[in-house]
């Protein structure tokens, strides 16, 4: 069930209404049932994998706790949970990469997300950051909470498990803020990401026919698309959770305004970056074992991150490029904070260019296709009327306006100004009119409904 489907527009209010109507002791059961139902709309069979992962990490947590100070036994429990969970992830996501292996397994929606969430719990219990969860319903809900089940944010157990044990009463302010967040998420998904995707698909699906400026536009539009697609999903997830009184991790913090690639990675897919920092980079030694080792660790983390995104070489190249950028920034000492406007602008521009070049590998179907795109990008632009962007002039104008609104919003966000909060402080009549107008605008201009394939959120495949 997609957030931008009619099914979800029915599912969400029903889930919320019953959540608040039910007595507190039954609420988690209800949310778990709703989450499983939500997941089963993609594939009923794959719910078994989700349950399997849940049971393994749940048992591992209890056994780890029971092991007390017996480090070996604790390590064995962690190893067991990691091995089994990663084996399942490997079989369903990466096995087809191996030569002479053709399992033809259907992609499992959200498997990378819930596996990582379950593994974070295993590690947190092992480290003693949190006690093991003994209530299976609570734990199962932690792994499968529907707003963030299929595309994150990947929540840390210490942040999210306590929230599942707290009683959430209906709160008007939470509901209103959650609703506004959802609207903003829908806006950037339907009005920006899905319209930009038309241009991106048109050009990347026939990349050898386009050159110069066309490829530049496609690459820039893909940067916009993937940001708005993923951030859109995350914000809707945050909004859904907020409506019910839960607080999820903010996954993006105006990443394209970053002035270095390292800064970009602190603001892009924050929950995954922090997962890798906590459970891979630091265990590898982080920056504690010398400069050379630090660079190796950065490269390992980014390569694994690339592999996490997809079982293909081009994703690994994408991760590797981003790792390389960060290493070069460290070596050249370019990763300091820029203070002047010119410095910020130049840094921001170059960061965007570098990140966007890497995105070409992410978007292309193969490394070969990415290299063709980059070669054609450098060739002179030949304007040809038969080469179109796939959208009309009015759509292009509205897309550019919407992107402008997003940029302004991100700039203000960096300055600590939140439009959502400003909106809440307005006169109720004006606020009601603005909110209604915004919904109407999304419904009118957004890409949704019949005639358009409801574009699946890109990050589901991971």
């Amino acid at each position, binding site marked *: 069930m997609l957030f931008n489907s*009619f099914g979800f527009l029915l599912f969400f209010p029903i889930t919320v209404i019953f959540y608040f109507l039910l007595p507190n002791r039954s609420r988690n059961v209800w949310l778990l049932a709703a989450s499983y139902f939500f997941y089963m709309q993609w594939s009923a069979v794959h719910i078994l994998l989700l349950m399997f992962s849940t049971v393994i990490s749940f048992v591992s947590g209890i056994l780890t706790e029971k092991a007390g100070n017996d480090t070996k036994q604790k390590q064995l429990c962690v190893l067991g949970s990691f091995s089994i969970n990663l084996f399942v992830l490997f079989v369903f996501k990466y096995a087809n990469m191996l030569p002479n292996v053709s399992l033809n397994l259907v992609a499992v929606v959200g498997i990378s997300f819930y596996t990582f969430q379950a593994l974070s719990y295993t590690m947190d219990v092992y480290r003693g950051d949190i006690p093991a969860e003994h209530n299976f319903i609570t734990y199962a809900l932690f792994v499968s909470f529907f707003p963030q089940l299929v595309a994150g944010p990947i929540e840390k157990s210490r942040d999210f498990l306590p929230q599942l044990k707290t009683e959430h009463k209906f709160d*008007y302010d939470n509901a209103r803020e959650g609703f506004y967040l959802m609207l903003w998420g829908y806006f950037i998904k339907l009005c920006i990401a899905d319209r930009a995707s038309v241009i991106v698909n048109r050009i990347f699906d026939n990349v050898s026919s386009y050159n110069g400026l066309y490829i530049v536009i496609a690459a820039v539009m893909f940067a916009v698309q993937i940001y708005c697609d993923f951030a859109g999903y995350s914000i809707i997830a945050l909004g859904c959770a907020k409506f019910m009184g839960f607080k999820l991790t903010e996954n993006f913090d105006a990443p394209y305004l970053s002035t270095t690639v390292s800064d970009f990675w602190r603001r892009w897919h924050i929950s995954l970056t922090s997962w890798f920092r906590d459970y891979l980079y630091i265990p590898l030694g982080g920056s504690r074992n010398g400069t050379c080792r630090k660079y190796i660790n950065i490269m390992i983390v980014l390569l694994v991150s690339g592999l996490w995104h997809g079982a293909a070489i081009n994703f690994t190249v994408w991760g590797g490029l981003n790792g390389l950028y960060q290493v070069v920034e460290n070596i050249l000492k370019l990763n300091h904070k820029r203070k002047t406007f010119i410095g910020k602008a130049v840094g921001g521009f170059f960061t965007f260019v570098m990140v966007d070049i890497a995105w070409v590998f992410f978007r292309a179907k193969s490394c070969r296709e990415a290299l063709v795109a980059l070669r054609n990008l450098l060739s002179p632009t030949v304007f040809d009327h038969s080469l179109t962007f796939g959208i009309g002039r009015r759509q292009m104008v509205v897309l550019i306006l919407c992107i402008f609104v997003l940029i302004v919003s991100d700039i203000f966000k960096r300055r600590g100004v939140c439009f959502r909060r400003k909106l809440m402080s307005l006169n109720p009549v004006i606020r009601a009119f603005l*909110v*209604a107008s915004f919904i*109407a605008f999304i419904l009118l*201009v957004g890409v*949704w*409904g019949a005639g358009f394939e409801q574009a699946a959120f890109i990050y589901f495949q991971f």
Partner: protein
Amino acid sequence: MSKNKKRGLTVILTLVFFVIMLMGMMVVTRDKSGIAKNKDLYTHGNDYDVLILGSSHSVMGILPLELWNHNGITSYNLANYGQSLGVDYWVLRNALRYTNPKVVVIDVYTLFFDEKYSVVHLPYLHQHVDNMPLSSTKIELYKDLFADEFTMEFVFPFSLYHSRWDKLTTSDFMPTESSGQLGADVNQYIGQSLGSTDAEQIMNLHNHMHEYDLLPTTEVCEEKNISFDYLEMMIQLCQENDIEVMLVMSPAYCTEDNQRYINSVYEYADKYNVHFLNGLWENNVYYEADFFDTAHLNSSGAFKWSDYVGDYLCSNYSLTNHKGEEGLEYFDDYYVEWNNMMFDKLKENTSLFGTLVLAYNPNFKTAITISDETFLEDMYLKALVDNVGCDVVIDSESKADFCIKVISTLTNEEYSCCFIAVEGEIDASTIVFDKQD
């Protein structure tokens, strides 16, 4: 005012604003062709003695305005492109809520459709369904016709039409006028049919026609599909409501398989004691000149077939000639408007072949002058000239090769145009005529 009351009012106010905006957007963005097609059905429902159901063969081939002109029959055309008998049934059920017809004409061409509706013709289905007022019939229609995947775009058509936002024009903000054709659609073929490739088109058509062999009517299809069920349901529905039924098959090139379906209709006509006018066996149209393509009549053919159907209706059913009756003046107004539109299409047409097709019109008086009699040795050109049915003057002094003069008898407007053969032999496959007003 308490905090909760204030919050409640804000929510209500937001909803009110939103509903108003949504209603406005729904009205502005919706496709207006369906409203234009069926507007008169809902405003003058009780005026119509005859309802016509069917597919493209009928929406383009049985013209209510010509039935009015020729026989004084008041009719409404509810046929549409690719319309299955399943859709016909529901369109009829809906129409009977607003009309009180004496006869229902059912075109049986789509009997070979083994589906409730044609997926490739969904836009035309929208023309009907989106404009049906909400009723128990409409809800039953949803339940019967639509698989889940299409339900939402019919229940909430804004989900489809909002994507028109970038194509809106001033007319989308104005009230939609009736098409003025009582449900028929002659725009689809007049004026556009025979362009620069007309000679080749006619050749292909004739090649098809020469393959046209009629099977004996005893050869029927062995398995009856879902369309037969809907045909029976329609006949039963009409008979329950004391409405007479006329089954009809328009003249067309028909494959042998299609003919078997058509031949199966005789069994149903006998079973329910209803008339079946099978155009495949009638000789009222001129196969050399009356077709737009192998399946559809052009304007010339549509006039002839409509007149034929009108005569058949008058002979076999108790229908009244309503001409001159009070309250039906709009039929005459529409007829004049339609005639003017046809005249404009004639003027706009740049092809000799297209002009000759359009020159066949009960309200046009035509004169043709040709510079060289040998032009008429071309059988295709001769067929079209003969079809116009006027005297042809041979004038070797004429500077142009073909001169056509048309006078509209309704408005006395006059139009002349000339064509010059610029290349090729006197053969429809190669000859090209340039128009010179």
